[in-house]
């Protein structure tokens, strides 16, 4: 059709306007722009990866209890032996009593144990010193010891403990942390990215210039959304794959689980982009975007089970947590990834996300500004 002439004058080029073509051109431009925007890459990939790295290297067990062994304690007894075999417990030896006391005071070790064989007896006496600096871990140790003694104090010489444990999937820190980080990455991409882009396109009159072309408003929004969702999904895939291969993130049904997670991620970004549209409408300048965006993202970052299970929050706080959309995205992600549930099994979470989406977009339609 088109020849090589440099002057296009008189070329029989036809101008066939197509909405799809315009939308895709916008999506492509937007995607290129996002990939070159340092803040987008940092928020979507770098932050979540840093957190995942930190928690990934913290090890598999999650909680550790550091127990000091008092100098002069009997070492060749079944109690110490059992403690040594308990993965959660790390025994600290070879420190003086004074040193241990200081560590206890600061909570650097969680307890100190002193085992002595009773005179003229096969039984042992076990002295445990807890510290108020670390009561919760002390309590875990107490129940561990109780388990041991329940058997042992009766038959002190028998080293065998009758415990039956159901072989379960090991729930690793990464299995909790990664979905939370993924959710947060989607939240920041959706909120910050969308808000910044639409505000700056509006302020620099880029959108006005678009309006001088035959492109439809819907194409501008959809093109931008395609790019952002595409970028968010690439980021999500990257995080999941990295988590799986380097930190043993559990994907119960392999690729199917990944696909389910990406579907959830898409839903999440779409909902979160709604916040971005609202913010771009109410922010008067670029410097107003971060504070308003933080009002949306920070509470969810802290309260939606990104780092801690929301069950760990005080009772009065939990209803707030349960009102936030990220809570349900995180919840659904964890159930899909770790418990291997299908999307239908997390329909309640999906439904709440959709309800949030409807509410957010109802507001966005009201406050969004084109010019």
């Amino acid at each position, binding site marked *: 059709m088109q020849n090589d002439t440099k002057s296009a004058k008189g070329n029989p*080029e036809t*101008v066939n306007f197509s909405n799809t073509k315009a939308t895709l051109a916008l999506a492509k431009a937007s995607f290129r722009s996002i990939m070159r925007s340092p803040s987008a890459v940092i928020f979507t990939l770098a932050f979540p990866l840093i957190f995942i790295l930190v928690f990934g290297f913290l090890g598999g067990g999650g909680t550790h209890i550091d127990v000091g062994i008092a100098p002069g304690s009997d070492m060749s007894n079944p109690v110490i032996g059992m403690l040594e075999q308990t993965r959660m417990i790390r025994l600290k030896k070879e420190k003086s009593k004074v040193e241990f006391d200081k560590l206890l005071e600061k909570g650097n070790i969680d307890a100190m144990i002193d085992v002595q064989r009773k005179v003229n007896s096969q039984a042992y006496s076990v002295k445990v010193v807890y510290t108020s600096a670390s009561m919760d871990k002390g309590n875990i140790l107490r129940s561990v010891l109780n388990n041991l003694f329940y058997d042992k104090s009766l038959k002190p010489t028998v080293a065998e403990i009758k415990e039956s444990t159901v072989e379960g999937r090991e729930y690793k820190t990464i299995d909790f942390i990664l979905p939370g980080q993924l959710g947060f990455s989607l939240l920041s991409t959706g909120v910050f990215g969308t808000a910044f882009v639409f505000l700056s396109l509006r302020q620099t009159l880029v959108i006005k210039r678009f309006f001088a072309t035959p492109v439809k408003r819907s194409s501008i929004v959809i093109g931008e959304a395609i790019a952002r969702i595409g970028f968010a999904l690439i980021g999500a895939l990257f995080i999941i794959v990295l988590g799986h291969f380097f930190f043993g993130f559990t994907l119960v049904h392999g690729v199917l689980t990944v696909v389910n997670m990406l579907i959830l991620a898409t839903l999440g970004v779409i909902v979160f982009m709604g916040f971005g549209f609202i913010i771009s409408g109410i922010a008067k300048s670029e410097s107003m975007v971060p504070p308003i965006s933080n009002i949306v993202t920070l509470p969810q970052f802290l309260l939606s089970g990104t780092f801690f299970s929301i069950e760990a929050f005080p009772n009065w706080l939990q209803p707030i947590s349960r009102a936030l959309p990220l809570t349900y995205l995180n919840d659904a992600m964890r159930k899909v990834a770790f418990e291997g549930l299908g999307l239908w099994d997390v329909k309640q979470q999906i439904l709440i996300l959709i309800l949030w989406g409807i509410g957010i977009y109802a507001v966005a339609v009201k406050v969004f500004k084109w010019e």
Partner: protein
Amino acid sequence: METRKAIISVNNLVKNYDDFKAVQGLTFDVYEHEIFGLLGPNGAGKTTTLEIIETLREKTSGEITVDGLSIDKQAQEIKQIIGVQLQAAGYYPNLNLIELIELFAGLYGADIKPMAMLEKVNLQDKAKAKYKALSGGQKQRFSIATTLINQPKIIFLDEPTTGLDPQARRNLWDLIKEIRNNGTTVVITTHYMDEAEQLCDRVAFVERGRIIALDTPDNLIDNLVNSGFERKKEVKKANLEDVFINLTGQEWRE
């Protein structure tokens, strides 16, 4: 200018912003293949008028047709045959010139070679540069390139030479004349009368939302002279800008 066929007809255009009457009954025609200048002080209603014709702004009343298309009913068709350069408009962030041209080609559904578009405005060397990194003159030439993507019948240039040095300005005049010579009608606004005199085939003076004069620059000047006007200072055969160009060279710097 023998064939005086109107490609744009503006009839009794009115635009009110709340209490402010920005445009108060403008009537004028723009002929095919001419460079038409809208001149006037800031706030006279030039940009408002342009943006209404460009379908970017609602009018309060009046009729406008662009190439026979009604602005009320056929805005979408009008957009396809016009090219628009906005005052102080930016471009999509983080993209280079080629990518921006590709984007606009997609927005217009035009099948063009981006490099050929850049060659038209002599920016082929800047193909991989970002818009922000261009000089003032290059930015304006790039903006003009984006107006040509859909091979429009009319292009609108809103103060394209504001802030440019004399060389860049003359360079842009050449480009605009070339576009006109290739058969495109050009509507331009400017504050510079020397520019209007050199560039425009016809000019309209707009003042407080009304047209107070409309003719060729030559006729307007002759009329004034015939009315007995005399410059206080005798006109020399050259002016200071000629001196500047003579001293610093025609050659346009980046």
